[in-house]
Each structure stands twice: as C-alpha cells, then as structure tokens.
C-alpha cells in the first residue's frame, strides 16, 4: 500500500492556502446525531435505574425524576421519538439509495476486515503501517451497525413491553418476559459501548482529546482528515469536490486533483474501487 499520507503532507507544506477544515457532516446529519444523542441520554437515564431499581442510586434517580410513573412516561415518550428517528433515518436512506442519491458506503466490506486485522497488527507491533481509511473506518462502521441492530432490538422489544396486550394477541406470552430480558440487556450493552467505546473514541482518545467536535460543527481539520480518512480526502481531491459539500464543487486539494485517480487506484483494494468510482 502506498503511503498516501506522507505525500499529502508534503503537498500541504508547499501550499499553505489550502482550507484548514473540511466539511464532513451535513446540517441534517449533525441534527440527527444531536437528537439521537439526546434521546439516548434520556433513555439511559430513565432506563438503567429501572433495570437496577433495587440499587440505592437507581432509587435516588427515580425519586429525583418524580417517581417510577414519571420515569416510565419519559422513557416511553423518548422511546417513541427514538423509533420515529430510526424510521426517518431508514426512510431517508432507502429513498436516497433507490433514487441513486446516496451510496450505501456504510455497508461493511472485505477491506474493513482487512483494515481491522492490519490495525491490530500495527497495534501489537507486527506492522509499522496502520491501515488507510475511507470516509468511515471499520470502528465507525462497527458503531453504526451496533447502533442500528441494537436500536432495532430496543425498539421492537420496547414496543412489546409497552403494548403487551397487543403483543400477546397472536404471539405467545413468553415473548414479553423474553423481550424484557433482551431490552434490559441490550440497553446495558448499548450504554457500555457508548460509555467505553464511543467516549474513548470521541473524547479520551489522545488524537482528539478533549473532544472530537466534528459531529457538532460538521467540520474536521485537514490534518485529522489526512490521518484518519486519507482515502476520502484523496478521492474528493480527485473529483474536485467534497462528497458532503452538496456538489458545490469546492476543491479541497486542487493541486492533487490531477494525479489523484492514479493514487487511489493503488491505495484501494479492488472491492473498494466499486464504491468510489462514481464519486
């Protein structure tokens, strides 16, 4: 694999007028993350005390929030909103993909697994090169699909628990306690992933400490882009515009644009080129 990063850095020193930041997330995506984050927080704060209700901290939280009845109302209302958000997200993607406006670039590819292995080899010192990522690296894809599948489990089981009368109309009653076990464990898992993995990735990770603001401002520094998503940067240079730029045609790396396609060809594995060829 060619060292794209090194080459880009060389170019940067030659051309200091290149924009410092890259727009990585659209306003809608930022808003979506914000709403999801807010609902996740509310759901965790009102959900975990229900799971561990015999612990004193849980009882304190429940009483602080006005009692179990209020906690349940808040939890269910946020759950319904979360389900709506999920439906909107899914709908947007489905329509976008069908209309050809969105490419399903979050779908895991063989490269992601190779990247993960390469990353681990790099971590343990078996390799001196860490993998080069495109718009979303394997960790981000893992989190996205974790949230997607976890969210589906939470929404389905949540509605079973919310409407047990309806759920048991045709299905076995045992589904309700099973849904409760799944809901409470899946919720705990989601919470742990966010607290451990997401908080590390976006706050404690020395690369971004104290906070990765890109999902709120939409902007990411060129330096980080270079380090974390070099292939995307290259690709946008090649096509002359950033993928999230709304097609306004702002070139990030005009100087690179000419030679980019050749580099991409060599940096990417064959299965990846399918995705980026039309960008």
């Amino acid at each position, binding site marked *: 694999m060619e060292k794209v990063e090194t080459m880009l850095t060389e170019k940067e020193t030659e051309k200091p007028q290149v924009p410092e930041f890259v727009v990585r997330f659209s306003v809608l995506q930022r808003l979506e993350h914000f709403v999801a984050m807010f609902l996740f927080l509310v759901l965790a704060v009102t959900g975990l005390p229900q799971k561990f209700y015999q612990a004193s901290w849980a009882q304190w939280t429940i009483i602080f929030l006005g009692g179990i009845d209020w906690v349940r109302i808040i939890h269910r209302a946020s759950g319904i909103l979360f389900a709506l958000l999920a439906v909107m997200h899914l709908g947007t993607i489905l329509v976008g993909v069908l209309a050809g406006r969105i490419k399903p670039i979050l779908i895991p590819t063989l490269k992601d697994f190779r990247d993960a292995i390469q990353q681990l080899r790099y971590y343990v010192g078996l390799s001196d090169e860490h993998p080069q990522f495109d718009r979303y690296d394997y960790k981000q894809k893992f989190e996205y699909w974790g949230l997607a599948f976890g969210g589906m489990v939470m929404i389905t089981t949540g509605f079973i628990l919310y409407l047990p009368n309806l759920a048991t109309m045709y299905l076995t009653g045992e589904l309700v306690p099973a849904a409760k076990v799944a809901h409470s464990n899946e919720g705990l898992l989601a919470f742990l992933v966010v607290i*451990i993995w997401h908080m590390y990735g976006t706050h404690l990770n020395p690369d971004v400490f104290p906070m990765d603001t890109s999902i709120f401002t939409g902007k990411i520094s060129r330096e980080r882009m270079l380090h974390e998503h070099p292939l995307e940067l290259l690709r946008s240079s090649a096509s002359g515009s950033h993928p999230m730029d709304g097609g306004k045609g702002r070139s990030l790396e005009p100087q690179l644009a000419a030679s980019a396609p050749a580099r991409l060809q060599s940096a990417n594995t064959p299965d990846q080129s399918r995705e980026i060829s039309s960008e």
Partner: protein
Amino acid sequence: MGIHETLTLRLGSLRREWKKRWLWQRRRILCLAAGGAAMALLGMPPLPVGPPPPAFASGTGDTGQSAAEVCLGCHGSEGMTLSFPSGETVSLLVDPQKFASSVHGKSLNCTDCHTGAQEIPHPQLKVKSRREYTLAQYESCKRCHFANYTKTLDSVHFDLISKGEMRAPICMDCHGAHDIQRSGEHRARISQTCARCHGEIYASYSRSVHGKAILNGGNTDVPVCTDCHQSHSIEDPRTASFRLRIPDLCASCHSDKVRMKKYGISTNVLDTYLEDFHGMTIALYRKQGFTQKALQAVCTDCHGIHDIQPTTGPGSLAMKANLVKVCQRCHGNVSENFPAAWLSHYEPSPKKFPLVYYVKLMYRIFIPFVIGGLILHIILHVWRMATNR
C-alpha cells in the same frame, strides 16, 4: 374485723407498697423526663405518672387474697345486679374460680382496676350504659400495659371509637375482663376472637389453606388474623400504605426456608415477584412514599386475601386455568396468551420458559464478549501510542 377496718388496713399496706414502688419509679421517671417533656411539647399523651401503678405479685400475696375476698363477699354470689339509665341490667357476679385462673388472678386485686370502687358503699356511677362503663374502665389497662395501649391509638378500631362508633373493640372486648388468658397459648382462638365481629371474613378464612390448617389440624405455622393485621396497631387494610406492605407481609413466612421446606413451597416467591413489573412498581412506590392507591397487583390480587387456596387446587384464582380472568380484571380484554407473560414465580430454565432462559444466557455471553473486545482494542491503541512516543 369489720369491712371498714379491713379496707383501711388494706389501703395502708397499699400505700406502703406504693411508696416503695414510687422510689423505684422515680428513677425511671427522671430518665424519661426529657422525653416526656418533648412529648408534652409535641402534644402527645403524657407519661402515666398520675396514680402510681398498682403493686404486682411480689409483695401482695396474702393481703391481696383477703382484699379480693372482701369484694367477693358481695360479688361472689348470684343476685346482685346493676341497672344503667339505658335500661340494661347487668349481673355483678364475678366467678372467683375464673378470676383466680386468669393471668391477673395472682397479681391484681379488684380495686387495682376498679379504682372507683375503693369505698364502700361504692360511689354512684356517672355512666349511662354498660358500654360507656366499659369504655371508661379500659383506661385502667393502660396504667400497666402502656406500650400496647399507645399502639391501639393508631389502630382503625380506635379511629372508629374516636368517631363515635362505640361498638369498636377496646382491650376487654378481645382479651376479656376477669378471665384474661395469655393470648399466645391458644393460637386458633385469636381468629375466633376477631370472628365475633368479623364473621364473614372468618368464614372465608376458615375455608382457606391457612384457616383449614389451624382450625382443623391445629397447625401453628399458618397465619392467624393478627399475624397480618397486627394485634394492637391494627391498620385499615384498605389504605395505600397497607397495600404496599402486603408482599413483605406474605414474604415474612413465605421466604422462611425452614417453614416452607415442610410444605415443599418455594421461598423464591418474593424475589421472582420483585423481578417482575408489578413487584418492581410496588417496591418503588413504597420507597417513594406513594400515598395513592397503588393499582399494581400484589400477592392477594392473584392468590386471594382471606380465601387463599393452594395454587394446585381448582379453587385457586392463581391456578393456570383461572389466571386469564385474574389478569383481565386489570388488563382489559387480554388474550389467553397473556398470562404466560408472567413467569408464575418460576426462574427461567431450559424446561420452564426456555425462550427467556436462552435470551438471558445469550446476553450473559454476548455482553462480556463485546465489551471485552472493545476494551482490548482500546488498551492496544493506548499501548501502541505509548510505545510510539
């Protein structure tokens, strides 16, 4: 010796006795003075420091006998009656045998309780009816049994009396007057005592698994009325706070491993209840100090209150065939599938509720696997960064 001389002697000895007791009593009173002052400030009933309590068995043996004999001189034979302005006529006969074999037979004298009757002839009574006399008389119990007396002040019965319902029971209605026996000695009698007023509930209780066991089999493991309702501080069982305590009430026996082992009953019933939606809500309502009527099911809603039947019997509400009707009482017109949503106090296992069991098992493996992997990834990242430096 004439009656009057005997009485004077008796009173003299009583006074000496009181003096002795008073010296002892004073120490106790000094200790309680601070508390008493605080209680008085708070408007609570003052400590019983009025007339010192009567002497107990210790020093009154012989004189007591003779004093009782004095009273029995008149009250020991048939014929004496007392008429109240209400028109009631009451026999004044006291069976000496009965009194002697009562708990107070050896320790108390007639006038210890009948304090108004120390003079002969007795002063004119100022009450209009027999009940009024009893109500006035029961004050004398509290001079010795103050703790239990104060408990009754919190009871639903006292509440009724204070509202003017004079039929509500006081000490003597349950314990008797001259023939008081230790209440623990005849466990079955406790419920029969309550039955004098609560006949319908007693009938229902006597048909229940608990009632049958004690009334027909003399089994003392089962609860009698007072085990659930208390003996003195009997609360209105229809209140929210009583309802919230029901699971703990039942669990006080049903979590007792030794007692339940005899009958092959699971002691997991409380834990499995608390695992479930209903139990959790009730437990939290209790923590919150919930004051409205909790609409969540407690033990008695499915198992019955006084008419509890074994869950294996056809009469049981909680029996599988009947359960859907029990659920429908609160959950509307739910289907036959609905009752299976409640695990019937079972811990999920491969045989009982396998779906729940395997989902639980899956997460028990899946969560540590995922979280462990992520933590390992983070550690490796940190480690590489540290070695790069």
